[in-house]
């Protein structure tokens, strides 16, 4: 995975992704279209986590909070009657960005395991806060009556239309991340991941760069959340529970830490595996656990690209 994925492969994948819902729809299996949309949304969330985890080297245990913030923002707006998709998504991303700015500003002053703990703490705080807001469901969750309306004749309630919207956002996200990691900003981030004291010494304030990265990741997480609440017509504080953050981390490591689309593949693999195994046994967590353990212990290539990096620094983001 050290070479860049060639453009023709991306095109083929895109073509398949476009064809899939049309085929499924023709067979009347809209349920699966919805299922894949959900997987892609998790993929976006995982890719956003990979930004700080993989590229930034920051083990954030509270990323689900941003997804939840994005979801609740849109959920609350729609409940209050504001259904303009453009407004919903913009505000959701804005609020997530703000939250990431605040949380990042404080958390990034710590390092190592303390960083892990403090990001966890913030996520839990937000979880309990939302749990207490009975007006918007509290721990029962919030049902929304309609989805975001983007105009342009797009009916998000239609499974196929929604799929394409998600696909569009996914592609956009990957493009943004790719461009970013290839830019100068990206190279500084990778250098910081290696050794941030050195980077500070050459005049790039590591803290600020990490902070900006954190905000971008949080914003993209919020975007995933906005899509998620639209997909489920429902959001609950469980979305922000620490085990959800853990699940996102699992997706990142499965797909490949520090890779462009690692989050996406990790999400697809994990969710498809979960659904498949669940068809046969109610003890699917058991098998997923073993699988995950095996990946962590035996095939840490995703991890190895993060911790046992080859001496030469990758300057191109790889996919």
């Amino acid at each position, binding site marked *: 995975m050290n070479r860049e994925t060639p453009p023709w492969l991306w095109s083929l994948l895109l073509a398949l992704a476009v064809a899939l819902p049309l085929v499924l729809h023709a067979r009347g299996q809209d349920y699966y279209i919805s299922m894949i949309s959900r997987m892609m949304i998790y993929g976006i969330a995982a890719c956003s986590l990979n930004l700080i985890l993989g590229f930034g080297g920051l083990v954030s245990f509270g990323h689900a909070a941003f997804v939840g913030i994005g979801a609740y923002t849109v959920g609350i707006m729609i409940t209050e009657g504001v259904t303009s998709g453009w407004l919903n998504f913009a505000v959701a991303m804005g609020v997530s960005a703000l939250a990431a700015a605040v949380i990042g500003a404080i958390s990034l002053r710590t390092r190592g395991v303390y960083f892990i703990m403090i990001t966890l703490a913030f996520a839990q705080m937000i979880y309990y806060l939302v749990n207490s807001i009975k007006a918007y469901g509290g721990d029962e969750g919030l*049902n929304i009556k309609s989805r975001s309306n983007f105009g342009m004749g797009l009916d998000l309630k239609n499974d196929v239309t929604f799929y394409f919207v998600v696909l569009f956002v996914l592609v956009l996200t990957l493009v943004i991340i790719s461009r970013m990691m290839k830019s100068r900003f990206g190279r500084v981030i990778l250098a910081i991941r290696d050794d941030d004291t050195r980077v500070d010494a050459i005049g790039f304030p590591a803290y600020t760069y990490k902070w900006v990265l954190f905000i971008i990741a949080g914003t993209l997480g919020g975007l995933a959340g906005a899509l998620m609440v639209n997909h*489920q017509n429902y959001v609950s504080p*469980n979305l922000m529970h620490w085990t959800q953050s853990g699940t996102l981390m699992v997706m990142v490591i499965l797909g490949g830490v520090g890779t462009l689309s690692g989050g996406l593949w990790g999400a697809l693999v994990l969710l498809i595996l979960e659904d498949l195994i669940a068809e046969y046994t109610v003890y699917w967590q058991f098998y997923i656990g073993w699988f995950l353990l095996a990946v962590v212990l035996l095939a840490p290539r995703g991890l190895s690209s993060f911790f046992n990096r080859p001496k030469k620094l990758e300057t191109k983001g790889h996919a």
Partner: protein
Amino acid sequence: MSFPLVKSLVTLTAAATLAMQPALAADKVKIGFVSTLSGPSAALGVDIRDAFLLAVKLNGGKLGGLPADVSISDDQFKPDVGKQLFERYVKRDKVDFLTGVVFSNIMLAGLPEAVDNKTIYLSPNAAPSPIAGAQCTPYFFAVSWPNDAYHEAAGQYATNLKVKSAYLLAPNYQAGKDSLAGFKRFFKGNVSGEVYTKLGQLDYSAELAEIRAAKPEVVYTFLPGGMGINFIKQFMAAGLNKDIRLIQPGFGSDQDVIRAVGNDMLGIFDTAHWGLDLPNEANKKFVAEFEKEYKRLPTLYAAQGYDTALLIDAAVRAANGKIEDKEAMIKTLKTVKFNSVRGDFRFNTNQYPIQNYYLREIQKDSQGRLVNRIVGQPVLTNHGDAYVKDCPMK
């Protein structure tokens, strides 16, 4: 367009066309059953499931003359899981009827899926007030009792006893709010405390300390499943049962709680729409068969699950197996007669039941077991609910 792309599209489309399946006629009744089958409150979902399956079994594996295909899933007491299960049953498996959920919050999360996809949901338990009133929908049938009802009966009972002060406790969700609202509607004494706890909370030390301080005459709690078991145990452990009388809604002191708490339960009064000793034929058969099959006495949850199956059976039979016509099915369900274990049963215009509510006391039966016995006259007769006037359905 590149050649590989064209090839893949063509192949996929061809495969799709070949694989397209024709729509099947209804040769069986597909039921999607979602309930809480794990966790501290699993006993409730398990009872509903066991009774439902018993009814199907006693019917030769059929409902309304058609073979019954019942698919069971566990909502793990989580609304998002329940919602996903609803979506799967409704969209992927395209079930004919959906049923099973114990808790109102899970049911409310999943119900929109059923309504949006025109699938009928028959509730063997959760029957919250919003769906009885302004948000009523023809796709929802409450086969149990309106959420407020037991509590209205309990409030009436407390009023009959001329109780002066009552302390109320319920979890902070729709059914919890419904319950205390119902109690207050019929209770004419003074409410010395109204506390909402967290749904699923198991440690009540804080609340019990407050109750001790408030010194009420009566404590009325709505705590289904594991919550109630823990509360009653801790209530007894703290010595509060010496001075304070505990009144319960029927399920708060039903067989599952009795099994868990034991002899301390003797003498507790509760209100319910059904009892083991209701003297109709259907009930006698139900209790006997349930005990024979499962080696335990049924709770009222089981009675509700059993009745749901009986209702589906009667309705499908009356419709001659034509279950795809949803509108006709709804009309049939509303009016069909069946031998309910609770005796007389009929639906109100909002598709919630009108029935009697009895006072029960925990006593020892002939075998020395603790059971709920119906005492005295019904506390409320032919009682509907307070919300039917807000429902536009006729």
